[in-house]
């Protein structure tokens, strides 16, 4: 058996709070983070979103960055979440030579570009914002505020970006190329994608209700989350306890449509199957599925069909996007952290706002938080535009 990939630290910032503790508290109290659009100057004030309830200047203060620095909100959220992960993993005290940083984002610095774009085009003003526009520039800026890295790259597969960052990090550890790797994603709300999803008419005018027969679409969110991954042999000499292990992962392409999922959920089925095969687990071993569950008619049907094809008995399932909103490129990591908290502390997060079972599906999601429920393995689905589908399986750690 190949060596286990351990999670030794994690950090999260989302509409649910600024750290793991706030996140878990709200999950257990069934308090959604979805609310009003605070810090984005859009005309669509009526659309609910899951915002991090801290403006840029306060974020800068919290992460110790000068008030006048030119920095994207995506970057600020990323620094905050990655720091929490690094501290938990005691990475700063580790004598590691080769640490990697792999981050997922798609909007990058767009939230600043969309403010200054006319200046970019017509004036010689605000030029300092041009070079922070790119996805890679955000990752570099986050990295710069965290420490020294041997390897640093950015994945941009829309809503599965963070999940794919986790996969690359795990592969690099397996090949022995790094001592530890920080993986995840960061994404702030922008007018660009708020309007983009709005033109597709897939934003729910009310807080999203994933897997509900009357679901009305996505609620967008923002946030960042990162995991620290290390090989088990590496942490034996450090006083760090694995939180869990990454036991399997799969990436497959739906190859169906740029923004829609196939009716039979082929890509979703394949990514889940690949993850199961790698983990050498049976579907019945999975105690919880944290679904991609965006709340659109299309995704929830496609994902649901794929899940019931693969699982004879569908395990407890919920979409925690009903708490955080869809944090797009960060979602894979945000929802993984939520699920690890759940597995570690024996609860199943609720799928808020669910009322009516979908006719097409044999199962319904968990309506209310279930406590005192122990499970050893969970699956996290993350599906993106273009059918970029990825599934991850995490398991409780059993020392080898």
């Amino acid at each position, binding site marked *: 058996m190949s060596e286990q990939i351990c999670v030794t630290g994690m950090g999260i910032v989302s509409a649910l709070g600024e750290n793991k503790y706030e996140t878990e508290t709200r999950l257990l109290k069934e308090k959604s983070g979805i609310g009003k659009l605070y810090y984005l100057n859009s005309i669509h004030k009526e659309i609910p979103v899951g915002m991090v309830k801290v403006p840029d200047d306060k974020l800068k203060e919290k992460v110790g960055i000068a008030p006048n620095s030119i920095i994207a909100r995506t970057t600020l959220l990323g620094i905050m979440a990655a720091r929490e992960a690094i501290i938990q993993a005691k990475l700063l005290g580790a004598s590691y030579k080769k640490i990697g940083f792999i981050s997922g984002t798609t909007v990058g610095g767009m939230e600043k570009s969309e403010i200054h774009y006319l200046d970019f085009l017509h004036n010689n003003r605000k030029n300092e914002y041009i070079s922070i526009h790119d996805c890679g520039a955000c990752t570099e800026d986050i990295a710069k505020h965290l420490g020294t890295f041997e390897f640093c790259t950015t994945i941009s597969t829309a809503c599965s970006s963070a999940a794919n960052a986790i996969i690359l990090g795990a592969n690099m550890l397996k090949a022995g190329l790094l001592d530890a790797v920080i993986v995840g994603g960061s994404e702030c709300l922008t007018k660009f994608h708020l309007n983009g999803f709005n033109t597709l008419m897939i934003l729910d005018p009310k807080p999203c209700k994933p897997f509900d027969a009357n679901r009305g679409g996505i609620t967008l969110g923002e946030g960042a989350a990162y995991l620290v991954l290390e090989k088990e042999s590496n942490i034996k000499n450090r006083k760090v306890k694995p939180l869990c292990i990454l036991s399997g992962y799969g990436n497959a392409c739906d190859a169906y449509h740029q923004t829609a999922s196939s009716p039979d959920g082929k890509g979703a089925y*394949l990514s889940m199957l690949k993850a199961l095969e790698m983990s050498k687990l049976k579907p019945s071993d999975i105690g919880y599925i944290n679904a991609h569950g965006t709340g659109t008619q299309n995704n929830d049907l496609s994902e649901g069909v794929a899940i019931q094809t693969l699982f004879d008995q569908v395990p407890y399932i919920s979409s925690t996007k009903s708490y955080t909103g869809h944090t797009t490129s960060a979602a894979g990591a945000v929802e993984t952290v939520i699920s690890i908290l759940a597995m570690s502390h024996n609860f199943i997060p609720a799928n808020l706002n669910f009322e009516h079972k979908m006719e097409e599906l044999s199962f319904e999601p968990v309506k209310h938080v279930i406590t005192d429920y122990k499970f050893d393995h969970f699956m996290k689905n993350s599906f993106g535009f273009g059918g970029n589908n990825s599934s991850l399986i995490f398991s409780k750690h059993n020392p080898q």
Partner: protein
Amino acid sequence: MVYINGLGSVSIQESIIPEYPEWETTNYLRCHEPNFAQYISPVLSRRMSRIIKRSIVASQICLQDAGCEMPEAIISGTGLGCIEETEKFLLSMIEQKELFLQPTHFIQSTHNTISSQIAMFLKCYSYNNTYSHLGTSFESALFDAFLQISIQQINNALVGGYDEMTPAYKNMLSKIGYIKSTPFTLDDIKNAETSGSVMGEGSNCVFLSNEKTENSYAEIIDVQLFHAPKSYSDTSNHIYEFLAKNKIGISDIDAVMMGLNGDLKNDQVYYEVYNENIIKTIPFMYKHLCGEYYTSAAYGLIMLAQLIKNNRFSNKFFKKYHPSNPLKKVLFHNHFQNNTHSLILLGKC
């Protein structure tokens, strides 16, 4: 063992084997558009943006060259993604004050549109990923493919670097010093001593496989990226370690293909690192053939693969020197702002 078995390119050049026209004096060159109809039906083509069409053509040429119908992975690098579509949606959003927007441009704006459109075109359900990390976007994709083949998760992969350079983005980049303020010929960047480069664009693919074929161009012995070196000697150490890991020394390297682009600061890194003490080989370069853009390294790798296989290129390919002996081992070294570096070690098959 990993081999390059196929190449595909849409670039500012008319042909995949570069020609050496007298370049017009400019600081911005756009792609020579291929005959799209030869590869994509008009029905499909109408719905595709320019970069998607170019990238599908490049991937088709590459897969045909490799004799592969269905790759086991499609891994892409793009610095700017579908910037033309992004600009269109962004501008209409701003000008129309968020009202009456059409979704078409948004749908095609995400960076992964290219990789997923290639998958849709092929009906390829396998691993699909997109890297967008400035000047090492393509090498990140190549690294992922090489890694997965090495740990036997996949047997082959279509790896591409795709970027378009719109006039608006080019103007933005010139404001922040990426582009030469005075027009240059591309050929002139060989000996440039000013800041900025000449902008280009392109869609370039390689097909990697663990199987050697008659068509194999070169072997990829190793791929490595490193980050934020503290000094030139730190960079040299990374190179030494990389070569040592592959059980060779600097004297075994017949040539180094460098990402020289005519920008004084960019080029200085190579001159400092590869000074006489380290390596006697005179640099090869490629960016004067394709222009500079975030994924121009993909073009460089294609050139190098052809060079290793055929060993026939005109003098214009090199900074000063034309190899007389077959190239057995070549190092490809590119960096972006001396912050992210990529090393690719290639060998003759």
